[in-house]
């Protein structure tokens, strides 16, 4: 079974600075997807960024980028120019796709990192 570990329960950063959230995972699969989700106090889960394991290039979405190290099974999220609206719980998630449907498409989540952006 896959496991996802987020070792930082809480982090804080000053507005406009850069912060990196760490995530490691354990799998024997070669093909899989990784995601970062954001859950603000409104509790809406928002997809921030995704990475396909077969791609060597790190994914980037505006101020959000990842450092994907497949051999090390590491998938960290970097947030540049932090904004107050970035304050949220951030979840790292793993998914192993399969040809057929069912639970092979399930997302396995880490326990989350609570990020607070201070003014």
């Amino acid at each position, binding site marked *: 079974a896959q496991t996802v570990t987020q070792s930082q329960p809480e982090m804080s950063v000053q507005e406009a600075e850069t912060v990196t959230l760490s995530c490691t995972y354990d799998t024997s699969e070669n093909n899989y997807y990784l995601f970062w989700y954001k859950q603000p106090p409104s509790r809406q*889960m928002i*997809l921030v960024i995704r990475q396909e394991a077969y791609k060597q290039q790190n994914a980037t979405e505006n101020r959000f980028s990842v450092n994907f190290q497949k051999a090390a099974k590491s998938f960290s999220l970097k947030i540049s120019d932090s904004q107050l609206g970035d304050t949220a719980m951030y*979840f790292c998630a793993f998914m192993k796709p399969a040809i057929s449907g*069912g639970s092979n*498409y399930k*997302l396995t989540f880490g326990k989350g990192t609570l990020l607070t952006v201070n003014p």
Partner: protein
Amino acid sequence: SAVISQKPSRDICQRGTSLTIQCQVDSQVTMMFWYRQQPGQSLTLIATANQGSEATYESGFVIDKFPISRPNLTFSTLTVSNMSPEDSSIYLCSVAPSTPGQGRTYEQYFGPGTRLTVT
């Protein structure tokens, strides 16, 4: 991405009763999922809602406790039966618009969640 709504947004229920949560999507989607997020915890997949057939449940979740319906490609319901205080959680539905097996990146989008409190 798909627009997902859930009803109710929150409810307070007495133990022993049942609550049905609805999930509506604004477009046809291939796969729909139900997750549970216990207080202060991460998300755990309850089941995959299959259109026209029985749901696929994860280990630890059973149909008698969490019956699921999916009559079409835009709608699903989750019932929490014979509730106890341990069922107090946020219940979220998610959808995956991409078609499985096409080699494309697979993303899940979440509804706003239903906050259930059982007294």
